[in-house]
Structure formats: structure tokens, C-alpha cells
């Protein structure tokens, strides 16, 4: 590969940002000044190309320091990593949080997604924009879900510099958003993670038991509250024992697909190809979902411990935690927890003195819903565009870097701790026969106490909404997020289990419960869902790339129409939706039409 770099040079600051990540360049081949030695020495080949996975961290490094990625910075980064500039440009332009054009150092992301839209985000956004005009040095961006739905409406300010500064403002007002953007350092501290857990302190909680109880910064406190007993148990019963327990417990993935975790781990562990990898998917970008954020902010060590157990079970010595770019506090807490665990021998070459090596690397996403799809996530970590791969082969066989990989989301992983501490039979006794264990639900919208609720599988939707203080005049409930489906207020007896929701013709998805009262204009909400998918489609396959656009156009046409006036467009929507479901490469395109379809069929949205 004979790479071609243009004449653009990085500024000193851009170069410093990249060199801080990668170390100083060793030779002129990498961008240093030419020396005599360079004439007789070339750097390249596989060793150089193997660092391609540092592309995304490199782009973050530049973006954090400067606020955008210039030609010179991108070319320098490419030179350092032996990545073709065209490919790196393709990667940089893939992510919503990156800019390849100059823009102000401060960007205020104002969430306009479902929960925030229902809480008046569009008016807020317009006013903030009016206040932070062109001269303010702030760029106001309308953002997809920021994962702060329990505190809607939400805004996130990011001020580039060394170090980068962030401020989360939620629930926000025009004043608070402007303050966060103009001086992120003096913006008020975010409320404690426990405030997102209305049941906090309830001794019956299993997954959320430590949120609000332990100090998330203290490893000792975590251990004093039962931390690391599950890992000791794992070492006592061995990897096969862990997989047996998880299988017997009946744990299935909580990210939305509900695949049996034990089977996935067994399939990964038994692959002859090595190394094996563990990937924790903490890229929850489903509008309405924020449970993984609260777990990481409120009980970060539990995830470190759970990842260690999972890696031990599947025979992995390296784990990646792919964390949403929009979660600054979760990032800080997880970085701290991983650092502490490493310093105390709970990660590293000899975990707990058991002779087992494991370490975790955090990778930050940069604003792409599709990267929650497991194969797109692998591409993102590897330094490619976050486009999904075709399956088969499945990740257990060829996953991250083409090697056997177990990928699980945060909630799935933290369930492993109670399985090992209480034993598979006791865990399996929670919930129903086929949906076992406790489940986290993200409740937001028209309720008095929005937040994360932990209930055993089998509670009904009505019971959950009751707990959250559902307001009067409920119009609809969106189950499973934007990729899920709507149900009517007279269907609140649906049991919240995988089989129960399936029988009712809907889905539990990732556990989103978004309640809307009759003040929310349904057609506009559906339009927002369509806009979300159009915006988040990676563009790789035709049904999704063009289908999401055609659906949004049809919904625009019928936003004010009903009955016979809307009939032709609804037929069109159905036909396109059916092809998207059948022919798209990945889950994004396959589910993009679900919510709107359910609103038409179950709610009679345009009748």
C-alpha cells in the first residue's frame, strides 16, 4: 500500500493532541523531521497497520482538543497509523459528534428525541439558539437521544480544549443550557445517579441494590457491599462452571435480542481460534434507554467485575468497553474504576492472584446509534466505518478483529453477579419460567417518578406504570424504544416478559417504557421516530438508506391528514416497511418501521 498524503500540515496543537495519544513519531515516515537514519530505514508493514484500531481514539483526541478535525490533523493521524486518508475521512464523517469543517470550540447538544420532545425540546432549542447567536462562540446542535430521559429535556455542552470540558444540564431550561454552554466549569454538578432510581435503597433490589448505597469512586466500599464475591465464586467453579450456572439460570441478553447468554458464551469458549475477545456494549442509544448509564455511574465496579467473569468464562484476556460518546460522567467513573481495579490487582496479569490475565480498554463512541449493533460496533472499534457486517459468520466465530467474540450489553453482564452469588436455581426462581431473573425498565414521559425500575419479569405494564406514578389521560405507551412498538392504555395488563409481550404482538426490546398522555401530538412523535431512523441509518443497504427517507416523506405528507386522505400514503408506508423488515442488512432497518406500524394498527394514529 503506497499511501498518498497531501500537503496539509497539522498545527502544533493538533500534533500535540495526537502525540499525547500515540507518543512522539519515531521517524520521518511517521511525520517527524527527516534524519540521516531515515534514509536507510522504512517503517510499515503489518506492525504499523495493526494500530488501525487507534483511529477512533485519535479522532477523539483531535476533536477534544480543537473542536473539529482539519485536513492536516487527519493526514498526520493517518501517517502515524498507516491508514489511507480517504478511509479515515470516511470514518470521521460517519460519526455525528465529529466535524470535518471548522466550528466553534463549544458545541451544545440539545436533545430533541422522544422524551425530550414531549417535554418541549423544540421550543427550548429555538430559544437557546436565539440566545446563543452567531457571535456567542457556541454551536447549537439538535441531538438524538442523550440518554437522560428521566430528566428531560436535556442538553450536553462540550468545550474543546486541554482538557476537554463537558457539562450536562438536565432537566434544562434556556438559562441553564446557556450557562452550561458558556462556562461548562461553573455549571452545577449533575444530580447523583441514585436519583434516577426511584427505588434506591430498597433492600429487595438485586441489580440496582448498590446504586445510591455505595460510593461509586471507592473500590473498598464496593467490596464492603459484597463486591468481588461473584468473581471469587467464578474462580472456584472454573470457566465451564460459570457457563453452566449462567445457562441454568436461563439468562438471556437484555439488549433487545434476548439471545441465551450461556449459549453465546459456550459457543465462544469452544472456538479453536484464538485470541478470544469480550466486548461490553455500553452504546445504548435507543431513545428512551438510560439504564446502562445509571449502572455505570452508580455502580461502576459491578461492571468491571462482571466483565472479568464473562471474559474468564469465554477465555478472553482482553475486553473492550464500548461506551457512548454522550456519557461523560459514565466515562469518568468507568475510567476511574478500571484504573483502581488495575492498581489493586483485580485487573491485569494476575487477577486476584489466580494466574488469570485480563484487562479492559474503554472505547468511546462518537454519536452513531448503529454502533449498538454488534458487528457495527466491532467495525467501529477496529477503526472502520460503523457499518454492520453480514451474518453469518456470527461473532462467536468471527467477531472483533475476526476472532471469536462474546458481546453482551451492560445489563446482561451485571446479571451474572447475582447468578454466581445466589446460585442458578435461586436466580431462575425469579421471574417466570422462560423469562428469568430481575429486569430493568427505563420509564419516562408522562409519569411523576421517571427513572429506572427493577422488577422481576412477569410484573404487568400497569404495575410498572403505577409504581412510576403514571399521569391521567394516558394516550399511549411506547414499549422497547423507537425500534419497539406502541400499546394502548387498555392493554396495561400485558405481562412484562419476553413471551408475554410477544403474545401481545409487541416487544420488550431493551426495556423502554415511554408513556405519553393526550397532550402529545402523536403524528409529530411518529415523524420524530422516522426522522431518527433516517438520520441514524448507516446508508449501507438500499432498503434502509432510501426506505427511511421515503417513510419520513410519507409521514410528513400525512402529518395533518387522516382517514381516506391518508390511506394511499399508509399503503405506501406498509409496502416500504415490509421490504425494509425483510431485506435490510441489520436490525436498524428491520425495526425502523415497527413503532409507526404499531401506532397505525394499535392506536389508529391516522384514522
Amino acid at each position, binding site marked *: *500500500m*503506497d*499511501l*498518498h498524503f*497531501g500537503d496539509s500540515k497539522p498545527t502544533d496543537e493538533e500534533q500535540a493532541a495526537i502525540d499525547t495519544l500515540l507518543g512522539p513519531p519515531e521517524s520521518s515516515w511517521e511525520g517527524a523531521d527527516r534524519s540521516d537514519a531515515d534514509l536507510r530505514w522504512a517503517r510499515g508493514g503489518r506492525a504499523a497497520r495493526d494500530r488501525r484500531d487507534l483511529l477512533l481514539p485519535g479522532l477523539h483526541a483531535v476533536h477534544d482538543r480543537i473542536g473539529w478535525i482539519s*485536513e492536516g490533523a*487527519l*493526514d498526520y493521524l493517518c501517517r502515524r497509523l498507516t491508514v*489511507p*486518508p*480517504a*478511509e*479515515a*475521512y*470516511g470514518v470521521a*464523517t*460517519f460519526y455525528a459528534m465529529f466535524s*470535518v469543517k471548522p466550528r466553534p470550540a463549544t458545541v451544545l447538544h440539545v436533545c430533541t428525541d422522544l422524551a425530550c420532545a414531549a417535554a418541549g425540546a423544540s421550543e427550548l432549542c429555538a430559544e437557546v439558539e436565539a440566545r446563543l447567536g452567531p457571535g456567542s462562540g457556541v454551536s447549537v446542535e439538535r441531538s438524538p437521544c442523550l440518554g437522560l430521559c428521566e430528566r428531560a429535556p436535556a442538553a450536553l455542552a462540550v468545550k474543546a480544549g486541554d482538557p476537554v470540558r463537558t457539562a450536562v444540564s438536565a432537566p434544562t431550561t434556556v438559562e441553564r443550557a446557556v450557562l452550561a454552554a458558556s462556562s461548562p466549569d461553573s455549571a452545577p454538578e449533575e444530580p447523583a445517579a441514585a436519583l434516577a432510581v426511584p427505588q434506591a435503597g430498597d433492600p429487595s433490589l438485586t441489580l440496582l441494590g448498590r446504586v445510591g448505597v455505595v460510593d461509586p469512586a471507592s473500590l473498598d466500599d464496593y467490596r464492603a457491599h459484597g463486591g468481588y464475591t461473584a468473581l471469587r465464586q467464578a474462580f472456584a467453579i472454573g470457566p465451564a462452571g460459570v457457563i453452566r450456572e449462567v445457562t441454568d439460570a436461563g439468562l438471556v441478553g437484555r439488549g433487545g435480542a434476548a439471545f441465551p447468554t450461556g449459549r453465546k458464551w459456550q459457543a465462544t469458549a469452544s472456538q479453536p481460534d484464538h485470541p478470544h475477545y469480550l466486548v461490553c456494549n455500553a452504546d445504548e442509544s435507543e431513545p428512551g434507554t438510560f439504564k446502562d448509564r445509571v449502572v455505570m455511574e452508580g455502580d461502576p465496579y459491578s461492571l468491571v467485575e462482571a466483565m472479568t467473569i464473562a471474559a474468564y468464562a469465554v477465555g478472553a484476556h482482553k475486553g473492550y468497553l464500548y461506551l457512548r460518546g454522550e456519557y461523560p460522567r459514565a466515562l469518568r467513573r468507568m475510567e476511574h474504576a478500571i484504573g483502581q481495579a488495575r492498581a489493586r490487582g483485580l485487573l491485569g496479569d494476575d487477577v486476584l492472584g489466580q494466574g488469570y490475565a485480563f484487562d479492559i480498554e474503554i472505547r468511546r463512541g462518537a454519536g*452513531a446509534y448503529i454502533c449498538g449493533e454488534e458487528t457495527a460496533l466491532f467495525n467501529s472499534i477496529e477503526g472502520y*466505518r460503523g457499518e454492520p457486517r*453480514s451474518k*453469518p459468520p456470527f461473532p462467536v466465530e468471527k467477531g472483533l478483529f475476526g476472532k471469536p467474540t462474546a458481546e453482551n450489553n451492560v445489563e446482561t453482564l451485571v446479571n451474572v453477579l447475582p447468578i454466581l452469588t445466589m446460585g442458578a436455581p435461586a436466580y431462575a426462581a425469579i421471574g417466570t419460567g422462560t423469562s428469568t431473573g430481575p429486569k430493568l425498565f427505563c420509564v419516562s414521559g408522562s409519569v411523576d417518578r421517571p427513572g429506572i425500575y427493577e422488577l422481576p419479569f412477569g410484573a404487568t405494564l400497569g404495575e410498572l406504570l403505577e409504581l412510576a406514578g403514571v399521569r391521567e389521560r394516558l394516550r399511549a405507551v411506547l414499549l422497547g424504544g423507537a425500534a419497539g412498538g406502541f400499546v394502548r392504555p387498555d392493554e396495561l395488563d400485558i405481562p412484562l416478559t419476553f413471551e408475554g409481550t410477544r403474545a401481545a404482538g409487541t416487544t420488550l426490546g431493551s426495556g423502554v417504557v415511554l408513556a405519553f398522555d393526550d397532550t402529545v401530538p402523536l403524528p409529530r412523535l411518529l415523524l420524530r421516530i422516522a426522522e431518527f431512523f*433516517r*438520520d*441514524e*441509518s*448507516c*446508508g*449501507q*443497504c*438500499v*432498503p434502509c*438508506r*432510501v*426506505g*427511511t*427517507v*421515503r417513510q419520513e*416523506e410519507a409521514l410528513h*405528507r400525512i402529518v395533518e391528514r387522516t382517514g381516506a386522505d391518508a390511506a394511499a400514503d399508509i399503503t*405506501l408506508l406498509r*409496502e*416500504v416497511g*415490509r*421490504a425494509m*423488515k*425483510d*431485506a*435490510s*442488512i441489520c436490525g436498524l432497518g*428491520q425495526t425502523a418501521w415497527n413503532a409507526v406500524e404499531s401506532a397505525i394498527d394499535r392506536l389508529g394514529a391516522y384514522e
Partner: protein
Amino acid sequence: MTVTSLGIPRRLLEFRIDGESVRAPEGSTILDACRSAGKDVPTLCQGDTLTPKNACRVCVVEVEGARTLVPACSRKAEAGMEVRTDTERARHSRKVVLELLASSVDLSTTPEVAGWLKEYEAKPDRFGPDAACVDEQPRIDNDLYVRDYDKCILCYKCVDACGDQWQNTFAISVVGRGFDARIAVEHDGPLTDSACVYCGNCIEVCPTGALSFKSEFDMRAAGTWDESAQTGTTTVCAYCGVGCNLTLHVQDNEIVKVTSPHDNPVTHGNLCIKGRFGYQHVQNRD
């Protein structure tokens, strides 16, 4: 004589296509098997010299037990598989996909697509006159070839041909995402500032005419491009000793473009800048 490598002997898999029992060597795709069985499945992003990206989804078929339809071009055949190529479900998806494509890009220079639109009764107009389309001006920044992204269906074939599958130049990539995704060189600049080495292998694999010889582009604009009046003559490139085959496309005694046979064991359809574009001296008659 064309030499085709037979490779190591492969086991034959037995499965069924549209109820008929077929046998295909292990590693074949469903599309290979369909074509051997004489069944026609439309394809756009599939190419005979590249690993298919299965992005266009025109070739989807039904496989028993699969939740969604599967792309015939890249799904490997398995023993016992029950494949149905012409069900209402598969036809519906192909029809909608063709409508989505034809309503968003210019398919006027895409071979065979007019026939498929007719066969599947696709009506791209039904999305209305305001349906968003790829609205791009042709990019003419050099004398060798033109990029007309109005015709681009994002099949990724040019990216693969320029990248690790053939040329290893990596001059082009997909940039942006969703409906705004486009093919571009680094920093979305002109071709002349990019890593492009003008081998033209991207033109060779482009299924829609989004990438074309400047000569062809100019003649189309002038209304003088006439494929029925062209002859193709395959010869050996005289520039170096490798022995690449060139097919000279000649209209009115002028070479209008140069391709290379895909089944040629030396080139597999690929050429370098000299073989592809260096033909002016042949017609310099002064």
C-alpha cells in the same frame, strides 16, 4: 487460451432451489447455484471479480427457517437448504428496492435495470414528485474519467476495487452516512489532489455508469455515443511485458474506451493508467 484455476476438489452440497434438487460445490453462493441451475436472480452490487458487499439487496431470496430474506450473492449454500427465489415475499422486496433506487438515482445507464423494473412492475413515480433524490452535478476535474454521483447506487464496488481487493491504492471511500453517504476521495476534494493513480479499475466495475471515461461522458452529452455501432477488439497491451489483455471499444474508427476481459488470468479485468487510458497515440494520424 484462457486458463482457469480449478483449485482443490470440493465436496458437492445437495439442497433445493424452488423445489428442485440441485448440487453445488462447497463454498458456492446461492447465486452461483441459481445461475448453474439456469435461474435468473437480478443483481446490481454483485460483480464477477469482487467479493459482493450485498448492499443493494436486489438479489434477496427466501431461505426456509431464516427470519428475513437473504442476499443470494453472498450467502453460502448449505446442504439441505430450502431456497425459494420467486416467492411473493422475495418479489415484493425486489420490487420495492428497485423503486427506491430508481426514485433516488438516475439508472438510465444501468444495463438490464429497465427490464427488471418492468418485470417486477416497479413504479418509482409513486413516491411523488418531491421524493428526495441524489442531486449531484457530474464532477469533471481531469481528462481521463468523470464521476457522476447522480447515478451512484453506493454498491461499494469501486471502493473494493481501489482498496484491498485489487488496486491497493485506497483512494476512495464512502463518506457521510445514511442518505447523505457518498463516494469520495480524501477530504472530498478533486481527483487530481487525491491518491488516485487513474488505473480506471473503478470504472471497470461500476455497474451504473456513475464512473465513466471522459470520452464516453462527452459523447453521451453530445448524443453521439452509440454502443450498437461499436466493435470490441481484444489485443495485448504494448506498454510493458506483463501481457495484459485490452479490449478496444471502437466507434467510427476511433477508440472510445478500453476495458479488459474479466476472465483473463493476468488482469482479471484490471489495468493500469497506460493500458486503460494511454490510447491516444494509436489514433494520432498526423
